[in-house]
């Protein structure tokens, strides 16, 4: 035991020169999906720090609090909803999330990142280019209340009338949709999980076709089903944006992480639907 004590003293006196550096970033990737990989490539191009990456879908369970305690990173990066959910108990470090649909909901100051909802102004510009003035919108106040409030303020400035109907239960949508008949020139779909159930999406698309009201959505996935236009996100650019945010957090050592709008979008449209509705192509 004396030898052990001596060795212990020597161990504390070890020169720090040849030591390996710990990772600055702990990257949690929800799965090996191609979209996440694309975003991660973008992230790495903008933030060249040492990292430890864990793909959550490779494991049946991952204790992120234990990982943070052991890896001692300076910033946690969460890619996808599973990674964001796993990071919610991290309080001592900034968490930068991307490609997470639940970002912004119940988020403390240290959790932010790039949201999945394009800034309202970009949608309003699209409505203006389509030539529509009255726009119907369904949303869950708990999930999208703040976004809709912001959209209403900006719509007033742009001269667009927004008919925003709160939906607290997915089953309430059908009745509220009936009341919109003849009241709107376009339908705006938000990525709101209460509203956008499979059944509701079919009802909204049917409404769009039967009432000749163009539907503008958050992804081109619905164009083939009858939506008129969509603002697609760019996963690689979301990665770059998140990388820049992580770099600034590492540089300035702030703990508060903002939630930013994605800055790059791709406008896609369904020409046949636009022609049928006699709308000009945006």
């Amino acid at each position: 035991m004396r030898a052990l004590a001596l060795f212990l003293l020597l161990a504390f006196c070890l020169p720090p020169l040849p030591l390996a550096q710990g990772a600055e970033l702990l990257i949690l990737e929800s799965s090996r999906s191609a979209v996440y990989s694309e975003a991660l490539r973008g992230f790495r191009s903008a933030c060249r720090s040492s990292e430890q990456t864990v793909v959550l879908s490779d494991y049946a369970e991952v204790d992120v609090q234990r990982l943070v305690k052991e890896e001692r990173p300076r910033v946690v990066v969460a890619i996808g909803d599973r990674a964001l959910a796993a990071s919610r108990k991290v309080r001592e470090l900034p968490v930068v999330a991307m490609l997470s649909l639940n970002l912004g909901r119940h988020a403390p100051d240290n959790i932010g990142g790039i949201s999945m909802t394009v800034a309202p102004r970009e949608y309003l510009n699209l409505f203006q280019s389509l030539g529509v003035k009255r726009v119907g919108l369904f949303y869950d106040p708990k999930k999208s209340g703040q976004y809709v409030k912001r959209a209403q303020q900006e719509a007033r400035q742009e001269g667009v009338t927004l008919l925003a109907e709160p939906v607290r239960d997915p089953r309430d949508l059908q009745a509220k949709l009936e009341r919109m008949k003849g009241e709107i020139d376009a339908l705006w779909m938000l990525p709101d999980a209460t509203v956008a159930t499979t059944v509701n999406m079919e009802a909204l698309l049917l409404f769009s076709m039967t009432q000749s009201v163009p539907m503008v959505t958050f992804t081109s996935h619905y164009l083939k089903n009858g939506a008129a236009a969509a603002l697609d996100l760019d996963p690689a650019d979301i990665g770059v944006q998140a990388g820049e945010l992580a770099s600034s957090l590492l540089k300035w050592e702030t703990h508060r992480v903002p939630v930013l709008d994605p800055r790059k979008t791709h406008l896609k449209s369904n020409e046949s639907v636009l022609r049928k509705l006699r709308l000009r192509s945006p």
Partner: protein
Amino acid sequence: MRRNFITKLLFPCALLSAVLAAAPALGSGQDELSDSFGLSDPTPELTPFPRPASRIAENVTVVTAEDIARINAHTVAEVLQTLPGIQMDQLQTPGSVHFFQVLGASSRHILVLIDGVAQNFIGSENVAQVGLIPVQMIERIEVVKGGASAAWGSALGGVINIVTKSPAADRAGMVSGSTGKSATRDLRAEATGSGERFGYYLTAGKLSSDGLVAGNDTDMNHGFGKLSYDFPNGGDLSLSLDARHSMVGLGESRQLDFHDTGAATHTTGNLSLKYPLAQRLAMEANAHAGRREVATRAARLTTGVPLNNARGNEAFRGADAALSWGDANHALKGGVAYEETEVGLHESVRRLPQQNYELALRRESAYLNGTYTVGRLSILPGVRLDRLSLMEDPVSYTLGATLRLTDNTLLRGYAAYGYNMPIVSNIGMQNGEVRRDLQHVRTVQMGLESADLPFVWVKTTFFYAEVNVQDFDPPAPPQLSQQVKQGAELELKSSAWYGFTLSGSYNFTDARDQKTGKVLSALDAGPRQALKIGVRYDSQPAGLSATLLGDWAKLHNPGPLGKAKGEFWDLHLTQKLSPASDNSPELFLSWHNIFNSERYFYDFRANPPRWFEAGARWFF
């Protein structure tokens, strides 16, 4: 025998299968959105690996609030019983008093902490009553198995570190109620939320029972509150108050003509600060104070003549401060601590001097722990100096190392020299005088953890410990006994396959008196062999979780009143009523000791026979 055992298993398996078959498959808006963005992230039918490998030198097991909720546990004792290497003497009615062992070390030598505050009742054999700690306030439990004095002080056999919940970002709450055999009821409520900087977490509850075995009625009222303030730079300050009062039947025997009852009160206030000072440099500080009281009363069952009437109390206060610097590969943590405890014990029937005393204990400590990594090798030294009033001043040290064979396979080991304070109570004292000499441990552990094998995570640990501990078996005076405890632990966990996960652990402990070579009784060293098995099923779309737990142990020489062998099987089910909703109400039920087995040290503190409970949780 084997056929009988398999037949016994058929019924719970059939019940589990029936429930699973009835579970509906449901979808949600979240799935629709994920699909539309191309982010569809379905849980694979078979995950490649169970969990990532840890990178620490000690043998540590972690339990989270989710793990606790899925077994519908009431107290920490029920949670610990499910973990590899930990053995409760026997689980009784929820809210009872328990002794336990961790890798052969007695609960007298295990330090139990809640948010850094020791829960061990110095005047009551230094045992922390984990059966009197409710689980609702717990975020996670970290169990360090093996001597840990260099980091924690008086922790000869290990540490159970309980971390409480922090305020949630948004307002939330929960109400829960359950009822079972012998009017065993557990009512709980929880509320949490945060403003711009301030947050709160509050919980309160009542756990009571008429007793699942004779003379084992329980009644526990508990409350816990935490207020926190988040600094803009990521630091936080929190103030918590933990208050618990329990009345419990300790045992009853018509054969021995006695009954024993007890009451315990715990009150702790804790102020805690975590503050980052610079890049990778943070300060942690803590100040706490509180009071613990315990009363026990034993009397003849037939005549009511008192046998024992003792009251113990402890007033404690302390503070510690530490600086930690570095990253995963290169780190130092150093700190100082101060603890003061006033202990009093009064017994009015026999009035023995060792049961009637007042004394004050003081401890001043300084410690330093580090991590140095060169390539794949990390060296983890640690040293701690304690200055104790009334006792010798111990120096504890440890030297650990981890070698990363691959990214997910780790070879670990450590050697340590540590101590435990002498037992300050009737069985550990002579004529009311505290022993000056401490209990010591020299220990070596080695192990391998790997998550590289497909579909299975494996962790093995070999341990060897020479301990010099107080032995209570021989007649007075109590003396230090040299013992050797060595053995192995194997843990396995499978990947999830169609929602099913298997886990298992096997422990072998050989504990002997070093001089005579005599094998120690299970009372001193826990079971020689223990096997724990778990089958979990989870279906998120159906909102169903099911857990079947098996626990077999062979106790060496438990005494004439004990039952040496027996296996316990418990089944726990939880069903969300609205699986797609984050705040769905849940129904849960637990079926304990399905096969009515018996395994205990004393028949007057026997384990309960088969019993059942059911309840519901509402979230808002």
